[in-house]
């Protein structure tokens, strides 16, 4: 029975939930525009005279902006390289039903990253590579290759095989069918997978904490160093966090449907 009062109750419950999940982020954005006196006065809510001083401090800081450049370099490179090796592999797994090979992806999902970080560090340190972009990119690819594989296997399986079969009849090779038919059709899936892989790299903390140095430090590590050395500069911390989070919010608003599909890929297959 759907009575109007039940509908209103449902609307109220959903509103409360939406506020619960969004208010902390709103609080972060608000704190970024507060002076350090205002930030530590909880009686000042969301109505105050905003200042841009925190953002000026972030721009002037000698760690935050360079770390953003580092995060971009590592994120873009690791995502692109991962897509190049993972998308064709996902097509092969999906089209030729090579699920045993595909299950290696699951292993990568289960094994704790730290149990790989220790040997990586041990080996990379002996090779004198710790602190290089190469090591950071390789370690981030360990996350993004399985992630892209996972999303794209499901995506290729969802594409109608008839189009590729028709292309084969018309004389394309199997690889031609992949390159000219499947790949263009899979562009939305690839874009989603690439965005999620980039976000994973952008957010990665544990690998970069160990494998980067002061010149290659990524944003989460730079933020973390802010807590340790300037624990009370909440405005600055929140401004830096805001700058980091805004791109994610924009992507979430523009592409929520695709992102939900990517995040939940494979969940309903059991």
């Amino acid at each position, binding site marked *: 029975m759907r009575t109007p009062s039940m509908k209103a109750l*449902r609307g109220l419950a*959903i509103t409360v939930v*939406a506020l*619960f999940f*969004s208010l*902390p982020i709103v*609080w*972060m954005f608000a*704190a970024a525009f507060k002076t350090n006196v205002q*930030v530590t*006065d*909880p009686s000042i809510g969301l109505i105050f005279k905003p200042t841009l001083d925190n953002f000026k401090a972030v721009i002037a800081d000698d760690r935050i902006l360079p770390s953003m450049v580092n995060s971009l370099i590592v994120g873009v490179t690791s995502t692109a390289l991962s897509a190049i*090796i993972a998308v*064709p*592999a996902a*097509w*092969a797994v999906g089209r030729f039903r*090579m699920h045993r*090979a595909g299950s290696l992806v699951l*292993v*990568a999902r*289960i094994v*704790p*990253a*730290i*149990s*790989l970080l*220790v*040997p*990586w*560090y*041990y080996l990379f340190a002996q090779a004198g590579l710790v602190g290089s972009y190469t090591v950071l990119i390789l370690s981030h*690819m*360990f996350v993004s*290759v399985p992630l892209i594989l996972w999303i794209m296997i499901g995506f290729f399986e969802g594409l109608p095989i008839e189009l590729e079969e028709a292309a084969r009849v018309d004389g394309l090779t*199997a690889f031609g069918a*992949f390159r000219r038919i499947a790949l263009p059709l899979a562009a939305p899936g690839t874009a989603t997978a690439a965005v999620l892989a980039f976000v994973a790299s952008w*957010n990665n*903390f*544990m690998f970069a904490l160990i494998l980067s140095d002061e010149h290659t430090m990524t944003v*989460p590590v730079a*933020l*973390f160093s802010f*807590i340790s050395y300037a624990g009370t500069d*909440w405005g600055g*911390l*929140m401004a830096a*966090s805001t700058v980091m*989070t805004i791109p*994610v919010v924009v992507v*979430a608003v523009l592409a*929520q*449907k695709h*992102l*939900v599909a990517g*995040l939940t890929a*494979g*969940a*309903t297959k*059991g």
Partner: protein
Amino acid sequence: MALTIEQSNRRLKWAMLTPALLFVGAMIIFPLLFTLNLSTTDAFGAVNAGAKHIGLQNFADAFSDSRRFWPAVWRTIGFTVGAVALETVFGLALAMLMRRAFRGIRWVRTVLIIPLLATPVAIGILWLLILDPTNGIANHLLGTLGIPPQEFLGSVSGSLPTLVLIDVWQWTPMMTLLLLAGLSTLSEEPEEAASMDGANAWQRFRYVVLPMLGPTLTTALVLRAVDGLKTFDIIYATKGAGGGSSFEAETLNVYAYGLTFDYQEYGLAAAVLVIFTLFIIGVVVLLRRRSA
């Protein structure tokens, strides 16, 4: 002689798969074997110092360590069970709430994705500000409700429960989205039939929807449990090395991290990691078997 289509297909599929398999294999299997070997050595200090094999001594040391190892095991279990249980209950409730479309569902979904994609370190710092015992908004709000101020992350006993709540905030949306995806694949007929037979809303949920949702629920539980056991970023960002000065939030992940990178106890750290990895695999196998 020209290759048959079968043969050329076989070559093609392996050619496309090999780079990814080699990469994942080289980055996982080799390091795992390396860790396994390292766990039987006394590697310590400089990474090129050399080490000798000492059998299973590191494992014996870990299992007999009731100061750091066992507390870390129990914290890992407590954190994961607490967080995943709450996320399952809230996630399921929210998924049922959002199951039928409503005006603004797009925006609620957007709000739900943001905690999932936001940087965990930034999330940790944000909650440090919100939950600051003297200047945080959380205690201010509790105060207006007449509830005395809490220490949250500032106290030894409050740290782990507070981290569970932060994890619930960040990851309940994942549970909800996974379960919504599962709900959207269910056929409506069994529910309509139950409704005709006079089942009320709770009975329809408990005896019709929930059993049909079983496989998705298992997948979601496995995913969340694995990630929960491995939680590192928010713990390290809010509590620092060792999970705080009396190790109050030190889970296995944080412990193994400290052993390696703060104490350079590579051999013992590797043994803890082997135990940790086997433990996670055990949990996955157990959860999957129970559902089968």
